[in-house]
Each structure stands twice: as structure tokens, then as C-alpha cells.
């Protein structure tokens, strides 16, 4: 078996100051195998990937390629051997065409003849069912198409091992299905695939074999098609952490937030304009908005938080027009917001948790006549920490010293303790460990049950389907209808995420009426 392995890792160790990112990892990938590498953020997946792609050298351990011992001298060397990598953040030049981008990665002899290269790109992309026009400029391509460029680039370089880092996080469900078809075909032709993910269902659908990492160590290997998601999740998170929240059915009350005909042209040249957004949120419900990143989620959040001002009567909260109010006034009215960026917007990185409490909770009696009552701020920060189990080195620790999950618990806790009547949360569990994610979901559900409205903007469809009373999707700054979750199919949601609202027109009218 060893001789047949395309890639074998033995006892890989990589240490960074203060953390052993890879601690004796063994891994074997057979030819034509789709091998999942599972683990939470910080489990050591990225480090291992960089070792395999030659970006970093391991401190200890050996790589074998086709049974031979290997010392990678860098990514170029890895590519030459046939190791291809598709990063989560694409490395493409937007102003160049598809062909030009692919030519950049090739040796001069192959890159010179553009005609021939173009032909090969067409051949490869048709063969694997990835429609792609080699003459298009990259900036005009969708995220899914850009990913195809990256994959085609690897295939043209004759990759025999393709590493994909969280490839589905940027795709709609339909695009995911297309990608999986391509990957299965590749595997059947003998290409090995290392599929890095933390989405268990996808891994179960696609992969032949899974290796699970936790804290830099291999905690288990399994055949994902025959193992339950719960059993795999246990391997990922360990024994103590609860895996999910119970979400009792919601009992929506009176309408609380009414957004009507909200349009907003972003100041940011790379931003997305909001186009005629209309929605209604009721007290006691969680409403979800799915969507691929950069489709107007951030603009919508700013329009609701008050960072962007709306025209008259576009944003009404509890019967009052709040569209012209700034963030501070809206917060006083009972609208709390948890932005996507935790460090550098939701919290000031170098300031203590006490100071970060003061950032948005100052109206909780912490300021009188311009003087700060730090005693009150400390009390509040302590309450947030105790109530939401924020692990930190005291409340005077700077925000950036907290892990992603703990900082997010702190930020959500800071807003939740102000008893908002509307909480808008953007990607609240992105990059957060499972334990914290469950705790955060708990907070949202509790707020809902105390009669608050929650607007959950997320890319994590599992999370949305689990928590939301109603949901829809945003694409290109337009919002789909928001329908009861139980009546929404994933296929329909996928179409909405891709901007196809055509068959929903009737429902839109219905929703407005």
C-alpha cells in the first residue's frame, strides 16, 4: 500500500512561537482518492497544507511522493511535481484575461503560444464540465468562475494531487454540485484530491476517506460515507463540547422593523449598491439572509446600524422613522449590531475589554455629564464575561489577545446584555470554534424568546436553516422574498443566492402586500 500512495506524510511537526501547529501528523493519500482533511479553525489544517505545497518547511517529519522521499524547495517545485493548490482567496489578476492568468503560472515555452494555450483551456474546461471563456477578463467573472480558472490552471500543469482549501465557502449550492461533479470525474481519472473543509455534510457526500485534526494532532480517520456527522464532529471538537443548540419553535409577535424601498449607492468603489430592499421583521423571530460574500450584506448592515443614512421612511423601527439617525441614536432606540469584522470594527484590537465595553454600551449608565464611570464599565464587562463564559486574561486584557470565538462571545454578549429589541448579526459564527458557535446560537435564540427580532446575515446555510424562522437571500444588492424556513428548499435558496428571483416575483408582490 505504501508504494502505491501518491502522497504520504510521516510525523510532520511544525512549531510556531507559542503554538505547535502540527504535532506529529501522518497522512496517506492514494491515487484517485478524494481525501478530506477535517478540523476546526486552528486545528492545523492550513499549516499542513502549506507544508504539502512547499510554502513552509516542517520542523520534523518526512514527505513521500509516489513512494519516494521528498524535500520540497517551494511551491514552484511542488507544482513541477504535480501538486496543485486552490487557495481560499484566489491569486488571480483581475485586469488580465483567463488565458493570461493561466500563462503566468506556466514555463515560458508553454506560455508563449497563446492560441495553443487557449485551445487547451477550452479542451480541459469542456472535458471536466467547467464552462469557461479563456478570453474573458477575470474581473468580469463570478466567484465560482474564478475558482474554475484556478482549477483549470492546476489541471493544465498536469496536477496529480489537487489541494482545495474550503472551496465551497464561496459558492452557491448549485455551484457546489457542479464542482463536486468535476472533482468526482477528476478522481475517477486518477487525480488525487485533498479536500479541506469543516462542513461535514459535504465531506460525507464527496469524499472517500477523511482525516480529522484537532489541536495539531490526528484525532481520527474514517470513511465519511459510513460514519455519522455526529461521530465525525465528535472527532473534531472533542468530548465536552455540545454539538448543537435546540431551537424551539418561534412565536412571532408584532412587526418591529419595516424596511421599504431602501436603495443605497455605496461610497466604496468596490461596494455593492442596495437596490429597493423591502422587508419586515417581527418581534420574536429570527430572520436569515443567505448570500455569497460581497453581495450587499455589509451595506445592508450599515444601513440598519446607522453607519449609512437612509431616505425618509425607508427604515422604520417600532413605528418610528429611524433612517436618518446615526448609530448611537439607533442603539438607544434598541437596535444592536454585531458586524462581520470583530477586530477593527466590532472591537478595538489594542483596547481592553473594559474600554471595548464602553464602545457601544456607554449608554448603560457608564457616562454621566461627559465623565466615564469606569467602575460601571468594569462591572458590565465582568457581567458579559461571566454570563457568556468569555475566556480571557481578565477584563483588562486587550481585545486582540482573545481567540475568535471568545471575542465574538464578548461582542454578542455586550450587545445582548443591553436587551436590544432588534439584533442584526453578520456572520456571527464565522471562524468560530464549535463550542462558541453553539453558545452564540443560544444567545440569539434566547433573545428571540425574550421578544426581540434577530436578523442573521450568514454564509453558513446549516446555521440559517437551523435557527431561522424565515429566510431568504441577497444577491447583487437585491433581496429575495423572506419565506418560512420549512417551506424553503435548498435548491430555491441556491437560485436566489445566484440572483435568480424570476419565479419569485409573485411571492415578492405577496410579501409587499
Amino acid at each position, binding site marked *: 500500500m505504501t508504494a502505491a500512495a501518491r502522497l504520504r506524510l510521516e510525523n510532520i511537526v511544525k512549531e510556531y512561537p507559542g503554538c505547535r501547529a502540527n504535532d506529529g501528523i501522518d497522512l496517506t493519500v492514494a491515487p484517485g482518492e478524494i481525501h478530506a482533511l477535517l478540523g476546526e479553525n486552528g486545528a492545523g489544517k492550513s499549516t499542513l497544507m502549506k507544508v504539502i505545497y512547499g510554502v513552509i518547511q516542517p520542523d520534523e517529519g518526512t514527505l513521500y511522493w509516489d513512494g519516494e522521499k521528498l524535500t520540497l*524547495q517551494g511551491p514552484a517545485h511542488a507544482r513541477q511535481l504535480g501538486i496543485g493548490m486552490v487557495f481560499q482567496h484566489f491569486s488571480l489578476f483581475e485586469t488580465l484575461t483567463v488565458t493570461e492568468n493561466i500563462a503566468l503560472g506556466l514555463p515560458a515555452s508553454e506560455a508563449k503560444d497563446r492560441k495553443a494555450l487557449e485551445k487547451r483551456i477550452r479542451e480541459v474546461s469542456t472535458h471536466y464540465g467547467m464552462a469557461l471563456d479563456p478570453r474573458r477578463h477575470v474581473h468580469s467573472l463570478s466567484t465560482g468562475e474564478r475558482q474554475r480558472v484556478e482549477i483549470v490552471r492546476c489541471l493544465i500543469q498536469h496536477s496529480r494531487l489537487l489541494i482545495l482549501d474550503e472551496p465551497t465557502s464561496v459558492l452557491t449550492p448549485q455551484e457546489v454540485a457542479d464542482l463536486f461533479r468535476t472533482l468526482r470525474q477528476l478522481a475517477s481519472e486518477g487525480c488525487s484530491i485533498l479536500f479541506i473543509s469543516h462542513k461535514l455534510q459535504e465531506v460525507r457526500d464527496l469524499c472517500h476517506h477523511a482525516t480529522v485534526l484537532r489541536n495539531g494532532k490526528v484525532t481520527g480517520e474514517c470513511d465519511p460515507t459510513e460514519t455519522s456527522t455526529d461521530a465525525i464532529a465528535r472527532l473534531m471538537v472533542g468530548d465536552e463540547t455540545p454539538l448543537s443548540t435546540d431551537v424551539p419553535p418561534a412565536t412571532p409577535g408584532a412587526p418591529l422593523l419595516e424596511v421599504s424601498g431602501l436603495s443605497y449607492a455605496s461610497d466604496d468603489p468596490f461596494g455593492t449598491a442596495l437596490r429597493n430592499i423591502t422587508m419586515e421583521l417581527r418581534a420574536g423571530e429570527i430572520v436569515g439572509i443567505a448570500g455569497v460574500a460581497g453581495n450587499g450584506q455589509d451595506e445592508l448592515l450599515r444601513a440598519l446600524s446607522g453607519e449609512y443614512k437612509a431616505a425618509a421612511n425607508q427604515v422604520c423601527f417600532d413605528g418610528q422613522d429611524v433612517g436618518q439617525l446615526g*448609530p448611537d441614536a439607533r442603539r438607544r432606540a434598541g437596535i444592536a449590531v454585531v458586524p462581520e469584522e470583530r477586530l477593527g*470594527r466590532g472591537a478595538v*484590537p489594542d*483596547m481592553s475589554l473594559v474600554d471595548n465595553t464602553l464602545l*457601544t454600551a456607554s449608554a448603560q449608565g457608564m457616562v454621566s455629564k461627559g*465623565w*466615564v464611570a469606569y467602575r460601571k464599565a468594569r462591572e458590565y464587562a465582568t457581567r458579559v464575561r461571566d454570563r457568556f463564559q468569555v475566556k480571557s486574561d481578565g477584563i483588562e486584557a486587550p481585545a486582540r489577545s482573545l481567540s475568535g470565538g471568545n471575542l465574538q462571545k464578548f461582542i454578542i454578549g455586550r450587545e445582548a446584555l443591553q436587551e436590544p429589541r432588534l439584533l442584526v448579526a453578520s456572520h456571527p459564527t464565522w471562524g468560530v470554534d464549535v463550542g462558541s458557535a453553539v453558545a452564540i446560537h443560544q444567545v440569539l435564540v434566547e433573545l428571540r424568546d425574550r421578544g426581540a427580532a434577530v436578523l442573521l446575515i450568514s454564509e453558513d446555510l446549516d446555521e440559517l436553516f437551523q435557527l431561522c424562522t424565515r429566510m431568504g437571500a441577497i444577491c447583487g444588492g437585491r433581496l429575495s422574498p423572506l419565506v418560512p424556513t420549512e417551506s424553503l428548499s435548498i435548491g430555491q435558496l441556491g437560485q436566489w443566492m445566484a440572483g435568480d428571483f424570476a419565479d419569485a416575483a409573485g411571492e415578492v408582490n405577496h410579501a409587499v402586500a
Partner: protein
Amino acid sequence: MLSLERRQVDSRLMEYLSPVLALVLTVITGFLIFLGLDRDPVEGLRLFFIVPISDAVGVAELGLKAAPLLLCAAGLTICYRARIWNIGAEGHFLMGAVGATIAALHFGEGTGFWILPVVLLAGIACGALWSAIAAFLKTHFHCNEILTTIMLNYIALNLLLYAVHGPLKDPYGFSFPQSAMFGDAALLPMLIPGTRLHIGLLFALLAAVAVGVLFARTFIGFQLKVLGEDHKAAEFAGFPRKRLVWFAFLVAGGLAGLAGASEVTGPIGQLIPQVSPGYGYTAIIVVFMGRMKAVGLILASALLALTFLGGEMMQIGMNLPKAMTGLFQGLLLFYLLTCDAFIHYRIRLTRRHVTASAGTNTPLATQES
């Protein structure tokens, strides 16, 4: 092999050690410079750093020079905490001096306890007005304040020169470019009799303490800090950015204006072209040396005041130009910025992995070079 590595947590020790280290390195470099200039280095350093403050009059002179530095630095601290890089204290200072002079000359030899406050207020108002120009340009047109304030400094200097050569020139002054001497009612009372030290120093100490309290206890101070550390968070929290920018500029302008007013109503008693030896610029060094904290600002303003006195001593005792002041100030700032790097970074000894790649890469590297 040495490498610079980002610290997990900023070093508190280094934050306070850095100014001390910078001073030590400056002294060492000064020693070498005196050697290079063929002067006795020990005597040179003694003349520069010790002789000026070896008697009561010397200490009073130190306070006299430290006061305007401290006033300017206190105002700049408010700006810099909010990352508003106001370089315009010199201009605010000069306009404050002009404004106070206009008021003082207006009252002439008149008497009344209210004259001095009005004169000082005129200086504060002129300084604040001057910095309001930069504030307006920043809040309405997003003009970079570094550029506008530097340019405004030159305009202020030329306005001052125009004033002393024209409208404010003493008609009985034998055509010297200077104003008439102020009346007694427009002069600051002395702090220590027999010296030139006036109560301007008290204003300065008060300003430093006030700035300390502003950032330690008030919400507006907190908002300014957030604006400086993370403007996205300030926006998210809904802090009034424009109002904060205006506040920082106006207070900085007012305090520097007061410094200018105190200078003409204090030791000089009239407006002259050389009213500032560069206090507004030196104050920038004071802010960074003083770590933007009240006590630090006071100590740093004393140290930088010493460089002015030391420079004069160099002329008298060593026949060296007054540029020695600028030289030592420059060295201090240079070493301070260097040492400050170690607040965020540390030096680490690393062993490079000697792999096959090193061998194969070398010929390539030489080809390229």
C-alpha cells in the same frame, strides 16, 4: 541570524524604557560628535546638559523654555492620540503671539486687571482660528492635515513678518522690525522674583494635567482614542468624527496660541520676528518622548527645553553654532523612533534551516544580481 519578530503583546517596559534609551544613545552620539569636532567631549556634554541648570537662574530659564513647549505638546497630544497629525503648533503659536500683540498694543499703557486676560484670550482665539483652517480643510475636503498645517506654518510666519515690518511696527522703534513694548497691565506676573520665570509655566502644567484627565476620565477623551486606534470602530459606535476632529484642532490651536501669547506677554514683552526658536516643532518631539502622558510630557518638555539652553552654551563656551540644538533634538527623535520599534517587535536569534534549496537557489540569486 538576527531577525525582527512581532511580539505577541506590546512591551510595557519598552514603552517607558525607550525614551530613556534614546537619551542615553543621544548622549553617546553627542560624545562622538564632540570628538569628531575636535572638542573635549566630557566638557562639551557638561556644557550642554549640566551647566545650563547648575543654578537657580538656570533652572528658572529651563522652566521659561519648557512652558511653551509643554503648552504646545499638550494640545498636540490630543491630536496625535486621535491620529490627527497636526504639525501646525508652530503656526498656531505664531498667530497666538500676533493676536496677543494686537490686543496688547490696542490697550497701550492702559490699566485694569482685565487687560491681561483679554490679551491672552486674543492669543488663544487667534491660535484656534488658525488651526480651524486646517480642521475645516480636513473635515470638508479630506485634505491631509500634515500638508495643510505645514503650509499654514509658513503662511503664519510670513504674516508675523508682515506685521512686524508693517502695521504692528513700533513707530518710535528706529525702523527695527518689532512692535512697541507692551504696557505693564498686559504683562504676565513673575513666578519667581529675580528671574524671568512667569506664570505661563502654571498654565502649561495645568494644561498637561488637564490633557491627562481628558484621556483618563472623560468620554470625549475615550472617543478620541478610539478614533485614533480604529476609525472603523469609531464609525461603528457612532462617534461624531467631525466634531472630534474640530475639538482636537481647536484645543491644540488654542493651547499653542496661549503659548505664543505667553511668550510675548512674558519674557519678551513685545512682538519680534524671532518670537519662537521652533517651539511648535520641538513640541512634536516632546509629545513622543513624553509618551502622550501628563508626567511624561512635563519631563520631556524639560529635557527638550534643556537642548535650547545647551545650544546657547555651545555658542558661548565652545564656539559651536546654535545648530547644535537642532542636532541633539534630531538625534533624540531618531533614537526614540528606533527604540520604539522594540515596543512592538523583539529581536530573535534564529537558526536558518540549511536545506538543499539554499544550495540550488544561490546561483540563481547571483545571476539575478
